[in-house]
């Protein structure tokens, strides 16, 4: 009985902790919103973050996107061949990339690359008192540090998703047409016939939401780091785990609403 009660107790505490954390992230989001519309916007910081989140992530995004498209073509081909519908491989790859894999894979890669770096950078700024120094100099850390990162996240993840969609479809085309010898005309025609602009748009809306999630979580974890180098490490890991899970959960609900 005692063991059962302590189980309930621990469960309750875990739920409370998570609800509290979700509330704090939401509060941070509201204060980011209020600082984002208050001039002066820190353009230099925003550009710097856009470069870091966007430009410097292109390589990994291109790599993951290309291979995902290629492997989808390969897998799809074996399935569709069973009922002689190989020409649908192209549209399958294109729909899969634009609706789902483009935004999700891109944001997971950006989480691993940039979301973790946001948590680590803000975390070490916290433990070396650089964030306190901002307060002391009458400058708001949310305005200086967090708003630029979140704007960069929201703006750059959709752009990277466009890149990922494109190279994914190109990878699928290469494998489908040149390796598996699917008829090029049918391959392309089915893509243009079955993929609508809405598939792409909705994928990009998802990507923007994921960009918000990964930057918000990364900044929240970094900003609230406690306890030296170990704390920075913990914040970074927690940021990646929480952001990845949140992206996948949000993906389900966004898909349910939009498609």
């Amino acid at each position, binding site marked *: 009985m005692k063991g059962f009660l302590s189980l309930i107790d621990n469960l309750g505490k875990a739920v409370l902790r998570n609800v509290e954390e979700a509330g704090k992230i939401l509060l941070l989001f509201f204060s980011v919103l209020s600082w984002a519309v208050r001039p002066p916007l820190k353009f230099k910081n925003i550009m710097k973050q856009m470069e870091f989140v966007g430009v410097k992530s292109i390589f990994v995004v291109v790599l993951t996107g290309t291979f995902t498209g290629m492997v989808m073509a390969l897998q799809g081909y074996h399935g569709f061949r069973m009922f002689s519908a190989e020409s649908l491989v192209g549209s399958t790859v294109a729909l899969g990339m634009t609706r789902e894999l483009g935004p999700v894979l891109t944001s997971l890669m950006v989480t691993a690359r940039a979301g973790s770096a946001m948590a680590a*950078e803000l975390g070490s*700024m916290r433990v*070396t*008192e*650089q964030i*306190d*120094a901002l*307060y*002391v*100099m*009458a*400058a*708001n850390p949310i305005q200086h540090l967090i708003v630029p990162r979140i704007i960069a996240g929201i703006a750059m993840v959709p752009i990277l998703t466009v890149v990922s969609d494109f190279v994914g479809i190109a990878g699928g085309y290469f494998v489908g047409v040149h390796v598996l010898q699917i008829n090029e005309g049918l391959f392309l025609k089915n893509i243009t016939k079955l993929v609508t602009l809405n598939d792409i748009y909705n994928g990009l809306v998802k990507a923007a939401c994921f960009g918000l999630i990964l930057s918000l979580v990364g900044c929240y974890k970094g900003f609230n780091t406690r306890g030296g180098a170990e704390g920075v490490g913990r914040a970074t890991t927690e940021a990646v785990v929480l952001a990845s899970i949140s992206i996948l959960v949000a993906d389900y609900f966004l898909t349910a609403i939009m498609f």
Partner: protein
Amino acid sequence: MQDMIQLKDIHKSFGAQKVLDGLDLNIEDGQTTVIIGRSGGGKSVLLKHIIGLIRPDSGQVVVDGEDITKLNDKQLNEVRKKFGMLFQEGALFDSMTVGENVSFPLVEHTKMTDEEIRQVVAERLKAVGLTGVEGKMPSELSGGMRKRVALARAIALHPQIVLFDEPTTGLDPVLTEAINQLIIDTQRNLNLTCIVISHDIESIFRVGHKIALLYGGKIIEYGTPEEIRASKNPVLVQFLSGSTEGPIQIM
């Protein structure tokens, strides 16, 4: 002498741990007050109360006639412009160059042109004994230089009050003396009110016009260096002699 800062009956706890317990302290205008006390005894917490980074559970912090515990963030920011603070490790922004670090408060709070800012930055760096380091990154500097740059940043806006959080900890004796001299010169030249937290007994007597001992969450001794040297307070005597025997318990 007029009081620039008055701390009245400050109480502050973190969880079950009581850090400040009815602390009273007056900081005189245009003087250097050194706060001493054991490690983890709440000195940094006290400093953070003075600049409004931490709010007390109860009590008043009066800066230049204004109780800052009642202010909102915007009003607090106005008060903070009167302050400069030198953090323990300098707290320079490591993504910015030395020049950008020192110019940060100027860019934020003044309407100076780039050229004017460049001049002021060079002037402040010269005041702390550095020239031609504007383009360097903080990671390229030694510990002593970082502290100098941090001091240049702290005095960039011509503050009335400068807070020093253990300015000489971790420095060799020569650098320690250099930083002490820098504090003394800066205080005198700019007529600043300085508050210094220190463990270094020699530095305390060198830079302080007034010395305050924080123990058990209260200021239990306060006076000029001569008065402090002559004090018979057993805690103070033990602290100054560095003895393990006495009222200060070692865990």
